[in-house]
């Protein structure tokens, strides 16, 4: 706490006017400012309006006991932190003194009191209270710093991170703040003015190099600068630090007048370091995220092929929020004289499921290109799962469409069968078989006719299955929802809107129409 330039104010409470006068004269001569009160009620009323730095309180008052006045002042949070010294003209019994001190008084002096003893006792008590106030203020600021650090580490953009840092510093130091760093996308500067309004500016050029501000001093550092151009050309106390030696510097500047003490500079150092660390974390996370998305997208079809004689719409919606992929997949590929259409679902929806999915998709395409029939493809994939991913059971439905003849060969490994929709209605194709990875024998393929105008829908169970609705009910609901002659993209969107909300599993949809 700064040394007060205000004189210390004492409230003298004593019903004996002569006494009051004596005490007050001593105190005023010693440089204290004095207020007076003759009764307990008057004292309480003065304290309610604004309190002195210390109260000298006579124990024997006409309207109430000084001990009661003390107890009341200590019970009220607004006045509890004002030190109280009892003075007593009557002889003091030990139990009186004990009672007074227990009641919250800081000292108990007998009258007549030697002025030197009085002032020495007062100063001792005030010294303690001032030190306690300093410690409480520091504790409050450190709590604020901890809260701020949490807010810094949960920021998701550099703009919000730097703004949070500036606002936290403004709250802590009570004045204007400028926080500044540069990112891969340019400079980010947040300014908080004395009124507390925040502005974030990303248009500026690179901030100055730290050496221009701190010279040879090692980073991180807090330095005082006479004139800081990007802090309103005012004298500033500035934190300068780098998250990592190779990364852009972080600056947090406050008005020098707001950070006069060593404690203030220490706090600014901590705040600045917390900001720099949070910047480093955010940078690392955005790099990781970009990498993950790139890898994940390489596992999915880049874009749907345009196949003569077929219109097509597909959707892929992963279950997890911050992941772009899961264990579901779909495939549409033109082979020599057939079109491969497939959907699949690896157990679970983790990143691991996605990598198994990636491998199975590549294996599926390889076997399909070789010209194998649908059941053989599934048997080969079954062997792949058992050999290379035991336990990663996968459902898959494979359809090989012969557009020239208007037929399709379908084999199903534990998946929801395809839904056929035409002018006669909607029905699930009767094709079933064990899922991949069990090594069980599978039935022969099912052959169906697909005349022009027929629509076929393949889905994964993410769109169908819910806690409160059975798979069977979900399949029936979709069967009733689909119309054979609508736009395929509109159909996919309506399926997702109607059935896809709140899905806990990934969703893949493939809708095709024979033209």
């Amino acid at each position, binding site marked *: 706490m700064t040394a007060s330039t205000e004189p210390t104010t004492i409230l003298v409470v004593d019903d004996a006017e002569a006494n009051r006068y004596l005490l007050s004269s001593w105190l005023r001569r010693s440089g204290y400012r004095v207020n007076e009160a003759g009764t307990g009620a008057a004292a309480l009323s003065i304290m309610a309006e604004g309190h002195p730095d210390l109260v000298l309180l006579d124990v024997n008052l006409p309207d109430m006991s000084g001990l009661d006045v003390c107890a009341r002042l200590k019970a009220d949070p607004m006045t509890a932190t004002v030190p109280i010294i009892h003075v007593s003209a009557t002889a003091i019994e030990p139990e009186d003194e004990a009672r007074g001190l227990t009641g919250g008084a800081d000292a108990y002096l007998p009258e007549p009191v030697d002025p030197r003893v009085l002032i020495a006792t007062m100063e001792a008590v005030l010294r303690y209270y001032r030190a306690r106030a300093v410690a409480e203020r520091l504790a409050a600021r450190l709590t604020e710093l901890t809260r701020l650090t949490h807010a810094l580490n949960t920021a998701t953009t550099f703009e919000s991170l730097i703004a949070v840092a500036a606002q936290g510093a403004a709250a802590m130091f009570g004045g204007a703040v400028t926080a500044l760093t540069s990112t891969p996308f340019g400079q980010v500067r947040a300014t908080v003015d004395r009124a507390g309004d925040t502005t974030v500016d990303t248009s500026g050029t690179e901030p100055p190099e730290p050496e221009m501000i701190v010279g040879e001093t090692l980073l991180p550092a807090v330095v005082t600068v006479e004139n800081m151009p990007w802090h309103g050309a005012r004298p500033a106390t500035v934190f300068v630090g780098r998250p990592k030696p190779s990364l852009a510097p972080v600056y947090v500047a406050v008005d020098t007048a707001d950070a006069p003490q060593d404690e203030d500079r220490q706090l600014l150092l901590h705040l600045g370091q917390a900001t720099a660390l949070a910047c480093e974390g955010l940078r690392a996370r955005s790099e990781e995220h970009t990498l993950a998305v790139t890898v994940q997208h390489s596992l999915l079809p880049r874009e749907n092929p345009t196949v003569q004689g077929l219109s097509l719409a597909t959707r892929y919606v992963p279950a997890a929020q911050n992941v772009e992929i899961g264990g579901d997949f779909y495939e549409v590929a033109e082979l020599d004289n057939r079109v491969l259409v497939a959907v699949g*679902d690896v*157990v*679970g929806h983790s990143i691991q499921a996605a990598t198994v999915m990636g491998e199975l998709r590549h294996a599926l395409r390889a076997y399909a290109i070789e010209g194998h029939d649908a059941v053989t493809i599934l048997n080969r994939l079954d062997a792949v799962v058992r050999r290379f991913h035991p*336990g*990663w*059971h996968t*459902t898959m439905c494979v359809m090989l469409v012969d557009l020239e003849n208007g037929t399709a060969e379908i084999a199903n*490994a*534990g*998946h*929801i*069968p395809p839904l056929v929709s035409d002018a006669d209605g909607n029905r699930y194709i009767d094709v*079933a*078989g*064990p*899922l991949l*990875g*069990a*090594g*069980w024998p*599978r039935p022969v393929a099912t052959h169906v006719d697909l005349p022009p105008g027929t629509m076929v829908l393949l889905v994964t*169970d993410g769109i169908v299955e819910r*806690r409160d609705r*059975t*798979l*069977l009910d979900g399949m029936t609901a979709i069967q009733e929802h689909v119309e054979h002659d609508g736009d395929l993209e509109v159909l996919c969107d309506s399926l997702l809107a109607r059935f896809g909300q709140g899905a806990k*599993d990934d969703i893949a949809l493939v809708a095709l129409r024979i033209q």
Partner: protein
Amino acid sequence: MDELRVSQEHADGMEGGVVLQIVGEIDLATVAHLKEGLATAERELSPPGPLVINLSEVTFLASTGLSALVACHERCEEAGVDLRVVTGNRTIAHSMQITGLTQTLAVFSTLEDALGSAN
């Protein structure tokens, strides 16, 4: 709230056999508990068992649960133990049908049917 209770019982006249009662939802969060229960039950079995898994009080069976059943079947086959699954309600039965499990697993509608069945 996901919850799964797995308990083991012996049925009369079944030496070396175990009945596993499963109650609740089987999904990614609870499947580990199911697998523990299966492992414990398998240790108590002696061929030809049977191991009867009663799913009639299972309210949700995710693909991860089906996967666990397939793996269990493989272990039972290797050990020469007869695996029987009681599906009870039609939700579970339908899931097992679509995934082709009913083709190879011995599936029963009630526990009585499963226990009364000859090896």
